[in-house]
């Protein structure tokens, strides 16, 4: 969460010289990433005025002619707001001043001169909506500029507070840390009323849970027809807090200023005393009008009848502050952060209070805050306090061993012991000889390493010198990165590598089916892509589609990554390498401009597989519904399915709106990497080449025959290459192979070759 506060407010507690940018830098350097942001610009010419007289406009019933004293002079202002007759102190934008959207000029309204404007808060930009001019109820100095009156800064600090620093979620908290890091004086907490004189009652509440660390309650009677002062309203606005009930506004203001969340109950709706306990069978309605069924670990503030608040998180609707409330019971409490966090994870309700409670509110703060809010309520709501009750669970402050050598060793620094002690003292630690006592607000400090960070932070991270690392030399084994070579091979073949999201749609899952059950996300980023891909084609073809839609009509893409599925409840992550070739294989002068075909994909796959040392694969008919049934094949290595190649089925192409496209996928995990054999010496004797042709039925697979030849143990056969497939008629094809024979020991005689050829013929004629 980012805290948005004005520098002036911060400086009320820690007087630090410097520009707002310098303040931001100080804060950033001590661990609070801070940006300077523009807030409302209020023209200094806008001033507080006193309405001296109001008269009717002779020409217009709805207009009034007012004389307004703005200190230096008295202006005549024509005002259309009917409440101006009761107005005393108002905001005046004289001629020449600027308000959002306009510069004021002298005008005549129905013949009467008007030298400015009496403003509503909306016209100044302080609220979103307002009805009529603003009546200032506070004490004012006539002629004072509004900027001064509000103590307004047009640039404010946006401070990012990390989750460990719950103690800094307030102006005071930030000031406290800043005073420590900059060695400046910190002002004390704002003063409060003397609560002790009101203490004595036990009628307000009763604590029945160990997770309540402190609980103070104060009853009051208030004048409900009041409003928060304008500076308070402005600071709440800057912090991004809405304005609602005057009591709620004051409590929010105190939370923002010193960090203590508080709650106000309409006391007349309560059946006292309240009981603080864990869990309840009774459901109740929260302030956001949602029905809440408490879990057994939830901390609840109940009255004698029903739960009235989910402690530290949100109050109940029934006992909330209302316009008619005139008796209230204030709550200022400290709850166990872990317990609040547990409830929050389960109920998913977020509030400014719960945000602070789960990060830890200092156990010594609640009474101070209550007394301070009483001062404000007294001042701005004319509050009268009737009774006060306080509960505190005794808690030991934690102690941590302190050793300056440990800290220096950890940091690689040489900070003096005395300097470290001073830093920790400034941060509120009670530094003893060999230990420190942690102040109550530092929930995040519990171990020696936490002290290391505090010292490093205050010393300045940038004041710790760089220290080169050293180490023994460890020779790295030479390892062939087959995947790297394979990718380079695809690149040489014209393929561009794509990196796609792993998220896919239901349609894509159905289009490219894969083994195992798909894995769905409970919170997908886009509703139409709720699944993890089960096959790389699902994401790669999306990239193909993306490019084709952008008038790129021929291209080659590949992707390497994981596919995900569940098999028998077990999650499987499989590494795949996939490729797609869309449209023509090559274009341009001297290319034949033909579309990609099955053999392009097959040769790509075989070439890529050789990167893993695989020289031979068995190709089998494949029945993948996404592929052309007669132009697709499964690739087997030692009876293991290592990949699939083929042309996409016309209906797949139609579904994706793509032209002719061939695809390949290799299952990397299934590939057995071949280690390189010892090198063989080339033969010194001549080789002999012979062609062999066989006529077969057209459904006989050439690959099967070639495999048979390879396995037939034909003597001196060195290589086999398919040369030609000639379709003689509808049912018959001639297949021609070129065979090469060679011996490593002698020149082969015709007789030996004839014998070998006879064996080859016999093998093919089966």
């Amino acid at each position: 969460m980012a805290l948005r506060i004005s520098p002036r407010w911060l400086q009320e507690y820690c007087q630090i010289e410097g520009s707002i940018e310098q303040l931001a830098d100080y804060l950033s350097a001590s661990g609070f990433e801070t940006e300077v942001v523009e807030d409302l610009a209020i023209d200094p010419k806008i001033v507080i005025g006193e309405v001296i007289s109001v008269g009717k406009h002779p020409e217009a019933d709805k207009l009034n002619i007012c004389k307004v004293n703005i200190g230096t002079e008295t202006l005549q202002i024509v005002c259309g707001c009917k409440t101006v007759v009761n107005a005393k102190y108002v905001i005046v934008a004289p001629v020449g001043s600027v308000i959002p959207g306009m510069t004021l000029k002298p005008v005549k309204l129905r013949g009467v001169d008007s030298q400015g404007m009496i403003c509503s808060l909306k016209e100044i930009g302080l609220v979103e909506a307002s009805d009529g001019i603003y009546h200032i109820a506070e004490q004012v100095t006539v002629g004072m500029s509004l900027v001064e009156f509000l103590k307004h800064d047009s640039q404010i600090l946006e401070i990012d507070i990390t989750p460990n620093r719950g103690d800094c979620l307030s102006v005071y908290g930030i000031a406290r840390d800043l005073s420590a890091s900059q060695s400046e004086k910190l002002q004390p907490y704002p003063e409060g009323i003397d609560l002790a004189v009101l203490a004595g009652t036990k009628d307000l509440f009763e604590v029945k849970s160990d997770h309540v660390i402190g609980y103070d309650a104060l009853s009051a009677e208030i004048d409900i027809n009041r409003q928060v002062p304008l500076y308070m309203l402005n600071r709440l606005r800057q912090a991004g807090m809405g304005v609602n009930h005057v009591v709620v506004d004051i409590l929010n203001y105190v939370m923002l200023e010193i960090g203590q969340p508080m709650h106000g109950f309409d006391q007349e709706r309560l059946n006292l005393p309240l009981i603080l306990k864990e869990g309840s069978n009774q459901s109740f309605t929260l302030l956001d009008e949602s029905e809440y069924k408490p879990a057994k670990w939830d901390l609840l503030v109940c009255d004698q009848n029903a739960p009235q608040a989910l402690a530290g998180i949100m109050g109940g609707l029934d006992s909330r502050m209302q316009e008619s409330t005139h008796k209230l019971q204030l709550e200022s409490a400290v709850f166990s952060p872990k317990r609040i966090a547990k409830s929050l994870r389960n109920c998913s309700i977020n509030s400014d209070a719960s945000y602070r409670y789960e990060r830890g509110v200092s156990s010594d703060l609640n009474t101070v805050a209550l007394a301070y809010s009483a001062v404000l309520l007294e001042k701005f709501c004319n509050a009268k306090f009737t009774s006060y009750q306080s509960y505190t669970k005794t808690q030991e402050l934690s102690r941590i061993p302190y050793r300056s050598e440990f800290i220096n060793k950890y940091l690689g620094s040489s900070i003096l012991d005395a300097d470290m002690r001073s830093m920790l003292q400034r941060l509120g630690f009670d530094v003893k000889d060999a230990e420190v006592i942690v102040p109550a607000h530092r929930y995040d400090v519990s171990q020696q390493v936490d002290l290391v960070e505090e010292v490093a932070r205050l010393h300045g991270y940038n004041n710790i010198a760089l220290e080169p690392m050293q180490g023994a030399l460890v020779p790295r084994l030479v390892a062939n990165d087959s995947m790297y070579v394979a990718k380079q091979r695809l690149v040489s073949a014209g393929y561009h590598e794509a990196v796609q999201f792993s998220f896919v749609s239901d349609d894509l899952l159905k289009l490219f089916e894969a083994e195992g059950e798909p894995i769905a996300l409970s919170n997908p980023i886009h509703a139409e892509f709720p699944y993890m891909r089960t096959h790389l084609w699902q994401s790669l073809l999306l990239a193909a589609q993306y490019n084709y839609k952008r008038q790129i009509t021929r291209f080659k893409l590949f992707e390497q990554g994981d596919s995900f599925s569940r098999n028998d409840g077990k999650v499987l992550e499989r590494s795949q390498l996939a490729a797609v070739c869309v449209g023509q294989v090559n274009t341009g002068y001297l290319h034949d401009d033909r579309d990609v075909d099955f053999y392009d994909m097959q040769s790509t796959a075989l070439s890529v597989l050789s990167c893993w040392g695989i020289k031979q694969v068995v190709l089998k008919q494949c029945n993948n519904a996404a592929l052309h049934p007669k132009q697709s094949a499964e690739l087997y290595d030692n009876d293991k399915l290592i990949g699939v190649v083929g042309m996409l089925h016309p209906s797949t192409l139609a579904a994706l709106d793509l032209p002719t496209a061939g695809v390949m996928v290799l299952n990397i995990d299934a590939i057995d990497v071949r280690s390189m054999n010892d090198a063989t010496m080339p033969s010194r004797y001549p080789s002999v080449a012979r062609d062999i042709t066989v006529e077969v039925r057209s459904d006989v697979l050439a690959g099967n025959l070639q495999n048979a030849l390879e396995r037939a143990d034909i003597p001196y056969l060195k290589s086999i290459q398919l040369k030609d497939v000639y379709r003689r008629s509808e049912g018959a094809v001639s297949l021609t192979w070129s065979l090469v024979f060679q011996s490593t020991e002698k020149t082969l005689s015709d007789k030996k070759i004839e014998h070998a050829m006879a064996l080859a013929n016999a093998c093919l004629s089966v």
Partner: protein
Amino acid sequence: MDASLKACQLAIEDLESQGKLNRHEVDQIKSFYLGKKSDLMQAYQTLGKLSPEEKKVKGASLNQLRQSLNALIQAGYERADLLVVEEQLAKGEDISAIGRQQSIGSLHPLTVAYNEMVSILQGMGFEIAKGPHIEDDYHNFTALNFPEDHPARTMHDTFYLKDSDLLLRTHTSTVQVHVLNSQKPPLRIATPGRVYRCDHDPTHSPMFNQLECLVVEPGCNFAQLKWLLLKFCEAYLGKPLDFRFRPSFFPFTEPSAELDIVWGDRWLELGGCGMVHPNVLKMASIDTEEFQGFAFGVGIDRLAMMKYGINDLRVLYENHVEFLEQF
């Protein structure tokens, strides 16, 4: 006799003028003038009938003719060979026309960045470790000192699997947990890989790539961590950097820091780092008296974007061919 010499020469010249002079035609001529049935050979046959005197004179004259014919024919062959070469040389190409172009593909910029970063770290003696993308809560959070229910967990916008306690890892620190639990220190490892966060805008991608480095060894310290992270970034970006380290917060490190560098005209956040929290080491049964650890993490995507001057993260995952072919 001069007549046959002349005729032979003429025959060769005729062939050339008709554009038919080649080795085969010269063979024919050779056979006509010097073959078994040629006049010359017939003439040799008649030598036997002559007197020794006449034989000597006639024989010498025949020999001379044979030599002359041979020379003519040899020249014919050479001429024929020359014509072949000349014919070949006459065939020219427009060497400026681009023909039969081989289109070369490209590695994805993220792969290029990944390879470069890995090679920097391998050169410094770091082992590369990898782990699963789908993880349990323990490896992603608990073992990294994110207590259950702790608000620090909300720092990560985590993708959860439907009907399961599993999640998509939000950082590659999960791999560190696997390594810490399976290997004995001292350790110097790097864990590059994909991570997932439930966030999508010009600066956030729901999937991106991280590289983390972990060192666990006796006496390693924060000053060395600063050095390592800075030197790594300088090596990758290829120049000395103006830098600053800022305190930050990560549950698994204490102290924690963030590195900013000057890039263009402003400070840019480059990576997080810190001394490994003793709680993390203890959970992996590592003696924290003997061993300290530090770790840093950088975004591969972010560094690559800086290097290539890319300002919208989304282009990396659109895979537009015209973007890809630049790399």
